[in-house]
């Protein structure tokens, strides 16, 4: 049971058109409000980070938890280089910014790319010794690295303004920036995954000994995947800084990485489309469940468990249920396809009609 190629193309075109129309409507404040826009922007940025994390964890099969650190690199690069020169003295009021740094002001896009490159180079430097490790050990090493980055940023008073962070970063004015960046970054990663290098990554995931016997240089390919992942994570980190217009090292605590881990586990390790869907569900879900944090009174009686923090409890419970019953996540290792949807609808249809026939 397959759809013809023409119908598939039409369906894809319709989907893209709907997305474009929706973004345009949101952007011009026809529908939604600033809050929804912000959540959607955040979800798009999280999608970039999660897909790049999936490139390492789901496609190359390395358990890396350094995402928050690389995000911090990107965020601070954008923050440091794009803060307007006139507001630097008021931000760096304890210790002034290093003069050589204050002299360099970069456009937003250039700063994003510089942040990505710095992250990629750092990833190569730590990747060379660290990527020989496997599974849990690699996770601990990369987690440690992300903490080191955070602490270093807290200490570099003249560059990152230390624990005070940097404010007044020029913000993102249109939804096209995060969504466009997401489309480009994820598009490039999908192209990479489907190229012969992507196949080599998958081979390493499936069986590294056999991959090496097939002539795949393990250390080179692992480092490559790690560096590319860090590059895109840092770019998303830069967008994140620009979206929030303020960064401080505390935001990049290692628990931030777990958000992305949740997204890729929920979406499916080794599925790009699953990851994108999951990043919207998780980012949206975290916001939607906010009503649990507010006090609730029923008939004048204040229910005591409804207080700040319950949201995370409920969220964790939902995730536990999900991991118990949907171990492979939404998509597993599959990708979204119109055939898949079509077959699924057909399956449901036949099941329904069979039920009717039986009764």
């Amino acid at each position, binding site marked *: 049971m397959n759809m013809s190629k023409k119908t598939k193309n039409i369906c894809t075109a319709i989907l893209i058109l709907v997305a474009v129309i929706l973004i345009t409507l949101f952007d011009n404040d026809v529908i939604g409000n600033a809050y929804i826009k912000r959540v959607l922007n955040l979800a798009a940025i999280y999608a970039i980070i999660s897909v790049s994390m999936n490139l390492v964890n789901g496609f190359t099969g390395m358990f890396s938890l350094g995402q928050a650190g690389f995000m911090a690199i990107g965020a601070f690069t954008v923050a440091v280089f794009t803060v307007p020169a006139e507001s630097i003295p008021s931000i760096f009021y304890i210790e002034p910014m290093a003069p050589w740094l204050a002299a360099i002001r970069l456009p937003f896009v250039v700063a994003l790319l510089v942040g990505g490159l710095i992250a990629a180079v750092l990833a190569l430097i730590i990747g060379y010794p660290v990527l020989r490790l496997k599974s849990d050990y690699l996770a601990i090493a990369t987690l440690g690295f992300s903490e080191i980055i955070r602490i270093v940023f807290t200490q570099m008073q003249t560059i990152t303004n230390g624990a005070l962070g940097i404010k007044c970063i020029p913000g993102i004015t249109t939804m096209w920036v995060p969504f466009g960046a997401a489309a480009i970054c994820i598009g*490039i990663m999908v*192209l*990479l995954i489907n*190229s*012969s*290098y992507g*196949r*080599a990554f*998958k*081979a390493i995931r*499936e*069986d590294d*000994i*056999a*991959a*090496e*016997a*097939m*002539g*795949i*240089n*393990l250390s080179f390919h692992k480092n*490559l995947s790690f560096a*590319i992942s860090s590059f895109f994570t840092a770019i998303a980190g830069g967008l994140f800084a620009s979206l929030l217009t303020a960064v401080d090292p505390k935001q990049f605590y290692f628990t931030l990485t777990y958000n992305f881990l949740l997204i890729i586990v929920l979406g499916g390790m080794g599925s790009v489309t699953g990851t994108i869907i999951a990043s919207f569900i998780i980012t949206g879900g975290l916001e939607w469940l906010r009503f649990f944090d507010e006090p609730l009174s029923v008939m004048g009686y204040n229910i005591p468990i409804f207080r700040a923090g319950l949201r995370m409890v409920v969220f964790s419970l939902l995730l536990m249920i999900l991991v118990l019953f949907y171990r492979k996540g939404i998509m597993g*290792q599959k990708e979204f396809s119109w055939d898949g949807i079509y077959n699924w609808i057909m399956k449901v249809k036949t099941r329904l009609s069979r039920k009717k026939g039986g009764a």
Partner: protein
Amino acid sequence: MDRQVLGVNDVTMQFGGVVAVNNLSLHVNEGEIVALIGPNGAGKTTAFNVITGVYAPSNGQVVFKDNVISSNYPHGKFRKKYLGEQETMDKYSVVKSMTPDKITKLGVARTFQNIRLFKNLTVFENVLIAKHMRSKANFLSATFRLNYKEEKQNRDETMELLKILGLDDVKDEVAHSLPYGKQRHLEIARALATKPELLLLDEPAAGMNPQETVELTQFIKKIKDDFNLTVFMIEHHMDLVMEISDRIYVLDFGKLIAEGTPEEIQNNQRVIDAYLGVQQDE
């Protein structure tokens, strides 16, 4: 015809106090089918792992054509603990060990005793991965499809190979869903896709019934002629070994106890003793 392809010289592989392979020397000439046999735990697979670079030997040298693949001698803290043949200890002074991927690139391909396919990838992808090693594209040109000519050529070659080996009808199936015999074939196909000169087969007939073994015998002969290969294999099925090998090496407790043509091996008393045991009271 007598050009040496593979030379294993005085190789000892020691794991702590266990000497898995002890002073093994053997050679494989161009165009031969050579078998390595021996009882369980004799060190055959360890010998294969040394040849393919999974382990660096404790002593000795492995040569493929004119390239030294790995070479080592017991030095430093390993010298005191060395348990292999003492007289070959100082013969090699070079320390070198190539990684498995470089050895594969030189033209040595192998299969594994317990099948190691890329389980969740399709048959076609499994074989196509072997082409990655020789493709010249860097990751940027591969990402942006600037290497489409090379990619198309790789795909065509893979398809051709699958047709020759009779796997084209299952090319879109996921590797782990194949029946056992086909999985073995696929592993050999994948090794052939690396364009090897020397093919190392680690128990290709393990777990096969007599009928399948006969088919495999034909298959090995066929690929040897079609692809101009030299074959070196470990095998337990004596029918297969005796039928196709030109020469046989016999290992027991890490030591080489016999070598020769199938007839010589069949009549060798030490080999019979190693397999059947020695009668004590005589």
